């Protein structure tokens, strides 16, 4: 399958160089800002992307909470905020993966009445922008008295991820041959045991890919957090960084003791799990990041 | 029409030697078949002649011109792929016209040539259709038309008949051969089907594991195989190879499991000079073994294991001591499993191979 990539490659080295240069130039808008993020987090100050010096002092916020006098906001301890973010991310992941695995299995292997309809619904929902329902969602969350509660974000995000999750898991279950399940049943396993001991392990790559994606989206969630979790105590890193960045950068307010590199450091801190995934879980990301479309 | 010369041609994929030191000389207008099992390197060789693969070692010449470094578009070759590879988004007319459009020929000339070749291949009424609307046989002829329309110097075909049903295959075999003779284009034809190769080609190149086993006419390949691979690959059922030992004593002889065959002085000396060890194979094709009622005339005795009636022939599998051999007999022969039979070899078609190297002695 990758044959085609080698045969599309231009044979002349000169042409290949041109393509590489073109790609690098086109990708500079990505390369430079992210380099800025990493460099800035360890710089004493920055001119463009050049640091004036390197330091670890930007990371002081890990030890003592940031104070911004006159900001109208009391910044909570970074560890509390990180924990909140982690909690939401983890809960979303677990919920999404479980529901998608069960539902995906049913959609793939079980012929039940209304299956076609359910399948169609899943596909329609994948295209439908759930975020258009935000106003009504606010009403629903309020109805369930979940305003201010992290579960408002967790449940909403899970629901928004379900169409994708179901589709991905269904796709993975589809690839398991029918005979394997039959063989397990003939060998004496009950259906439930077959599901947990045979089927689930076989779709492990799918579960892994989905978990990573769900975690990243849960960890990064912005708008749901802004709308449903206003109080500082329930802040996630999203709110923390947003307030900080707005005050120091855009507000152009000279803030005591807070430098731009410090804020960049907080940004890098927020990015850490994602950077780790990019280093260690590349193939999962490429597989599922645009929605488990067939062939990707 | 050109002469094609492959000199020390090799293609390595990492450690895998897909094509290893291949040397072939093709005269102009000749129809050459590259024959061998899957993975033997025949398609890879073809792709190198086309210019799609770059050889790891060796050179390729069209007439006296070294084309090894030329891309496909500068070689003026036409190629028919196993999957036909028609452009799905273009009508048949545009598929065939594509090579001419690239050459920037004037529109009326393109039209003339396309219609000419379409008529030659009897697909004139299909010009307005899309590939997905055609049957396999029709697609194949469109692929041929596309390859031929630019009047190539060399025509390359990669197993073009393997996706057709048996009846169509037989028909197309004759068609392609006739067309080739009529147009006189130097042709290289890749196949794993020996019937295709034997019936269509002027000469056959038998390949295995990247190496050439033998080059020759169908006659030579069939009756004078150069080694055990060719002997057992060609022929249905393949040549019998009986394990024997070369014995020198009062004369020369080959001692096989259940019988001994005496050799004449010249043959004996020939064998002795060529073999690397006394272990040899005695080779004889199933159709060159006869049943005889006279034990004195027989070369060997055998006991019947199984008989397979095939309508026109009867194939007998028999045990000659240490080996099983197959014999083709008339369908009415009174043979039954368990029987003891006497066999006579047609000595004109007897072969001896060195068991260690596989090379033929005679």
């Amino acid at each position, binding site marked *: 399958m990758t044959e085609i*990539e080698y045969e599309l490659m231009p044979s002349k080295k000169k042409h290949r160089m041109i393509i590489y240069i073109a790609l690098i130039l086109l990708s500079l808008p990505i390369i430079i800002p992210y380099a800025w993020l990493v460099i800035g987090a360890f710089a004493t100050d920055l001119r463009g*992307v050049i640091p004036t010096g390197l330091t670890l002092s930007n990371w002081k916020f890990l030890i003592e909470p940031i104070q911004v006098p006159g900001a109208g906001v009391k910044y909570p301890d970074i560890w509390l905020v990180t924990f909140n973010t982690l909690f939401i991310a983890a809960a979303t992941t677990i919920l999404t993966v479980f529901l998608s695995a069960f539902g995906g299995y049913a959609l793939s292997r079980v012929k039940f009445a209304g299956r076609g309809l359910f399948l169609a619904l899943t596909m329609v929902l994948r295209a439908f922008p759930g975020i258009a329902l935000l106003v009504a969602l606010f009403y629903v969350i309020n109805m369930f008295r979940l305003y201010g509660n992290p579960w408002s974000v967790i449940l909403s995000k899970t629901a928004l991820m*379900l169409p994708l999750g179901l589709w991905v898991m269904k796709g993975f279950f589809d690839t398991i041959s029918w005979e394997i399940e039959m063989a397990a049943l003939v060998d004496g396993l009950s259906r439930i045991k077959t599901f947990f001991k045979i089927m689930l392990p076989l779709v492990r790559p799918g579960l892994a890919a989905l978990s990573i994606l769900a975690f990243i989206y849960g960890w990064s969630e912005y708008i749901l957090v802004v709308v449903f979790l206003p109080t500082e105590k329930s802040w996630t890193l999203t709110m923390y960084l947003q307030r900080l960045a707005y005050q120091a950068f855009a507000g152009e307010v000279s803030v005591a003791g807070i430098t731009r590199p410090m804020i960049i450091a907080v940004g890098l801190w927020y990015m850490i799990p994602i950077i780790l995934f990019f280093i260690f879980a590349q193939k999962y990301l*490429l597989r599922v*990041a645009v929605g488990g479309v067939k062939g990707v | 029409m050109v002469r094609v010369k492959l000199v020390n041609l090799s293609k390595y994929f990492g450690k895998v030697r897909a094509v290893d030191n291949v040397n072939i000389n093709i005269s102009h207008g000749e129809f050459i078949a590259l024959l061998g099992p899957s993975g033997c390197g025949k398609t890879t060789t073809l792709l190198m002649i086309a210019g799609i693969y770059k050889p790891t070692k060796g050179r390729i010449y069209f007439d006296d011109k070294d084309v090894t470094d030329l891309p496909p578009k500068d070689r003026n070759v036409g190629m028919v792929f196993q999957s036909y*590879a028609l452009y799905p988004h273009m009508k048949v007319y545009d598929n065939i016209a594509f090579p001419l459009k690239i050459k920037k020929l004037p529109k009326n000339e393109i039209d003339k040539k396309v219609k000419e070749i379409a008529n030659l291949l009897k697909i004139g009424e299909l010009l307005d259709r899309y590939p997905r609307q055609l049957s396999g046989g029709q697609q194949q002829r469109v692929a041929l038309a596309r390859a031929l329309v630019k009047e190539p110097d060399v025509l390359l075909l990669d197993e073009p008949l393997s996706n057709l049903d048996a009846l169509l295959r037989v028909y197309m075999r004759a068609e392609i051969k006739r067309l080739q003779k009529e147009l006189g284009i130097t042709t290289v034809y890749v196949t794993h089907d020996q019937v295709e190769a034997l019936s269509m080609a002027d000469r056959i190149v038998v390949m295995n594991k990247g190496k050439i086993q033998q080059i020759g006419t169908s006659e030579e390949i069939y009756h004078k195989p150069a080694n055990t691979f060719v002997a057992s690959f060609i022929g249905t059922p393949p040549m019998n190879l009986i394990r024997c030992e070369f014995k020198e004593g009062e004369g020369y002889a080959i001692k096989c499991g259940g019988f001994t065959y005496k050799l004449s002085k010249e043959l004996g000396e020939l064998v002795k000079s060529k073999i690397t060890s006394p272990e040899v194979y005695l080779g004889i094709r199933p159709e060159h073994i006869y049943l005889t009622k006279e034990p004195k005339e027989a070369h060997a005795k055998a006991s019947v294991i199984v008989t397979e009636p095939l309508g026109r022939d009867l194939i007998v599998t028999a045990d000659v001591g240490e080996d099983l051999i197959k014999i083709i007999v008339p369908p009415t022969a009174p043979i039954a499993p368990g029987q003891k039979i006497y066999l006579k070899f047609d000595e004109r078609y007897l072969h001896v191979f060195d068991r260690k190297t596989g090379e033929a002695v005679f």
Partner: protein
Amino acid sequence: MGKALVIRDMPLKRLLTIKSVTVILLIAPVLVFIIIFYFMPVFLTFAMAFTDMDYRFQWNFVGFVNFQRMIRDPLITKILFNTLFYVFTTLLCFNVGYGLLLAILTSLIPPRVGNVFRLLWLLPRLTPPVVYYLLWLGITSPYPYGLINFFLVDILGLEQYKDVYWIYAAPWAVVILANGFVGASFGMLIIGSAIKSIPIDVIRAAKVDGASLFRLIKDIMLPILKWPILFVTAYQTLSLLTSFEYILLLTDGGPGFYTTEVWALHVYHKALSAFGGWEFGYGAALSLVLVVLGLALSILYFKIFRFRELIFEPKVEVT
């Protein structure tokens, strides 16, 4: 009718069936989520649009008042124009244009290197919006901090750009670029994998026919990629119509009055922010336009693109 196959004292047919109870267990939780978070909100959006609900959550039906207000609002045309301008420009230049370009370029190089670029372009999509916002602050800030100005002043020597704050100077450019770079990855991956599935022989045939790389791309690859490109365009249109997170962060609809305010952002401003006064009723009415459009388009896409996706027939029956 022979004897039916029996395994473990159960006829095969029975083994293959699954109790409906189990099926319900498997999909009930999913259904609950879909009902609560999709069906109910759609219904609610319809209902709320005809009320004047605010933070007091009173159901007070007022007929078409909200819609009349919408039509009469002098700024609504500006918002509409902004939305359309935003969607089509970002779509054509970036989601489709840049994405297609990246897809083709990355397929012309060895897969390992191609993957490096693909991962790189995946970064913006998987970066938390606030961090991405931080990056753009870094890019657009005035000299000496902003990356653009640093490049213009220090490297090109164009002193006049020293104090330019690009988010204020060129808000649309910033908004479109920021969203575009995120969107390009979608097109790149979808079209990229479509390129990988073009049969290799078709490419070889084109080479033998004499096509140069340029002709190969123009006459062979692009026509074959027609459907994936269409898919990306359709899908991303809907996605862009309802996205507003990055605009909220970067310009908050400004600078000034509604310069970059798009429809979805307007909903947020009216209904879910303190400035708007928590006008749920009006917000719902505004949302309704998006919801109806969203439903219509996603069902349309389903109909058009659905037959391209295989429906795998399961073998297990339900008793």
